[in-house]
């Protein structure tokens, strides 16, 4: 029963929020409570999976491969916990930042729609069902990105909607071909059939369609351009929620597909993915260095960091994958945190433009600290989690003997530090400009950012225990037989 809760709880909360849409104060507190409940459920699920192995549930008692299977392995469980924790922080932050008009226009119910889609994508064991969850997630994100309907938002959302629809076409085309080739869409059954058949003609074509679809959603080279063109337009809690969840669902799906379906031509895929990873990292970080809007710098950084996760996938060793999963958790927390800190800067000074900012360190040391922690974490300074994430990945790279990508990863790390220092210098250290606005900071927003910063620090301090979890998750990814047997009950 528990594996289905991460999907039906957000649905239940969404329904409650739809009926109570006139009482804004109730919505604010209920959403917070709801995300806490969701996090507790996810933690229970994580502990359960850690003790008893992969949890499966056959919806409606239709046995696999005929019905829809729900599967929670360590990777899914870790993702569920991280996403629902981020949701708590966003729900604390939102009332202090988003204007009342947007909040009562359905922000809270739609956010739970987004969470339902994300959670569904993490735990489904059926490719078509995965597509449905992607659509649930995207439809909700379409509403959120356009919520309020300012001209800038609409400009951004048109790009966002169009490119995501194109990606969905690739996704469905891939599903169609795959179903025609194998006659099944249950992931475990499909993986089993692929292994039994040895060689399936045209398999690579279908997989390439999937790769394009997911790399659009994840923001990989060369399909990342939509992300910085749209992410900076909505209010910052929405951007932060997107940054913490959406692209990572694309990455998660790539992990799942690579692990289950790539048997033939593994050598081609490995080098292909490593090249894409290297290009994504490098181009993302170079583009970020040339920006002057805080939100745009951070958006380009999402791309660069996604490259690291894909690098771990390309290595496909327990060390590499485990590093990538740890990095993903770190990135979801730290990236959301930098966006939220950027929101505080905006609340204080009324601008995201680095040229117009300055003197914030002197004006508000607390604000500076709240940005400093996640920024240094992203840059990879010990003992923050960014350092351990990169360390695990680079160690994995050396162990696998892929020296070139490892060298690229180290270099890109330096450039990341450069961008973070740039924001720091311009917004915090530079002398305060004369005409700067002196806005009031919301206490809730500060509390939320602080809570997330504490979580980031803890993730770094407890890198050892956390990496034990990620190693277990990586072992399940590298040995897909565990997944297949758990679902099919072999």
């Amino acid at each position: 029963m528990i594996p289905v809760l991460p999907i039906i709880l957000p649905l239940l909360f969404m329904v409650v929020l739809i009926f109570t849409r006139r009482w804004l104060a109730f919505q604010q507190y209920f959403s917070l409570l709801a995300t806490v409940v969701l996090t507790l459920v996810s933690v229970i699920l994580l502990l359960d999976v850690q003790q008893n192995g992969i949890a499966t549930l056959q919806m409606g008692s239709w046995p696999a491969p005929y019905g829809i299977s729900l599967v929670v392995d360590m990777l899914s469980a870790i993702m569920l916990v991280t996403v629902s924790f981020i949701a708590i922080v966003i729900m604390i932050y939102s009332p202090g930042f988003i204007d009342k008009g947007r909040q009562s226009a359905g922000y809270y119910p739609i956010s739970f729609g987004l969470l339902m889609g994300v959670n569904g994508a993490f735990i489904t064991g059926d490719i078509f069902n995965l597509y449905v969850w992607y659509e649930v997630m995207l439809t909700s994100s379409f509403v959120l990105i356009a919520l309020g309907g300012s001209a800038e938002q609409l400009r951004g959302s048109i790009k966002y909607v169009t490119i995501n629809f194109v990606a969905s076409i690739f996704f469905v085309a891939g599903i169609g071909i795959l179903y025609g080739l194998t006659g099944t869409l249950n992931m475990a059954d499909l993986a089993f059939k692929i292994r039994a058949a040895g060689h399936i003609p045209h398999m690579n074509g279908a997989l390439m369609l999937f790769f394009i679809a997911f790399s659009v959603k994840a923001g990989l080279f060369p399909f990342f351009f939509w992300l910085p063109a749209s992410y900076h337009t909505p209010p910052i809690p929405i951007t932060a929620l997107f940054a913490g969840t959406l692209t990572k669902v694309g990455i998660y799906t790539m992990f799942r597909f690579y692990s289950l379906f790539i048997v033939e031509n593994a050598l081609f895929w490995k080098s292909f993915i490593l090249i894409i990873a290297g290009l994504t990292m490098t181009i993302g970080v170079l583009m970020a260095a040339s920006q002057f809007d805080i939100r745009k710098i951070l958006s380009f950084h999402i791309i660069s960091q996604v490259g690291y996760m894909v690098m771990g996938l390309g290595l496909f060793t327990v060390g590499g994958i485990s590093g990538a999963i740890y990095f993903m958790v770190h990135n979801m927390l730290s990236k959301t945190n930098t966006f939220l800190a950027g929101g505080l800067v905006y609340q204080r000074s009324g601008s995201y433009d680095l040229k117009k900012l300055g003197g914030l360190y002197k004006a508000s040391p607390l604000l500076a600290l709240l940005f400093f922690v996640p920024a240094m974490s992203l840059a990879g300074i010990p003992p923050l989690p960014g350092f351990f994430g990169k360390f695990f990945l680079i160690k994995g790279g050396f162990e696998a003997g892929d020296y070139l990508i490892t060298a690229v990863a180290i270099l890109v790390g330096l450039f990341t530090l450069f961008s973070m220092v740039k924001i720091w210098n311009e917004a915090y250290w530079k002398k305060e400009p004369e005409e700067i606005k002196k806005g009031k900071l919301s206490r809730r927003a500060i509390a939320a950012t602080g809570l997330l910063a504490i979580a980031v620090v803890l993730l770094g301090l407890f890198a050892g225990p956390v990496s034990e979890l990620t190693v277990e998750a990586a072992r399940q990814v590298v040995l897909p037989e565990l997944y297949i047997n758990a679902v099919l009950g072999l």
Partner: protein
Amino acid sequence: MESVILQIAARHMRPLLVILSLVVLYRGHNEPGGGFIGGLMLGAAYILYAMAFGVEKTQKSIRISPVALTGIGLLLALVSGLPALMEGHLFMTGEWTTFFSGSSFELKLGTPLLFDLGVYFTVAGMLTLVMFSIMEE
């Protein structure tokens, strides 16, 4: 623009379309039809009415807002999974009961139908929500 022809047609078509949508909903379990198509028909009935009489008057005649209708639909879909749990089966397992069995009025009702009813309301709610917003512009 007010058209008498459209108004008379809409007044007579609305009850027919609502009944037809319910028929499509009920037969959908084994034959072509179902909650989605039924919901579209229900939505179409009210959109036609709104085209003839305007959105405001239509809203008043429905009494329930499209958003609430969507909410009810989602709730029904969610609730349809629960009877299976009380029976000790897995979530969303179809549970059926038959009324008047053996007679010519045999009526089979089950949780899949309840789920379909949820889809029916959700689709109709979303459709009218979107269309009414566009028509009000």
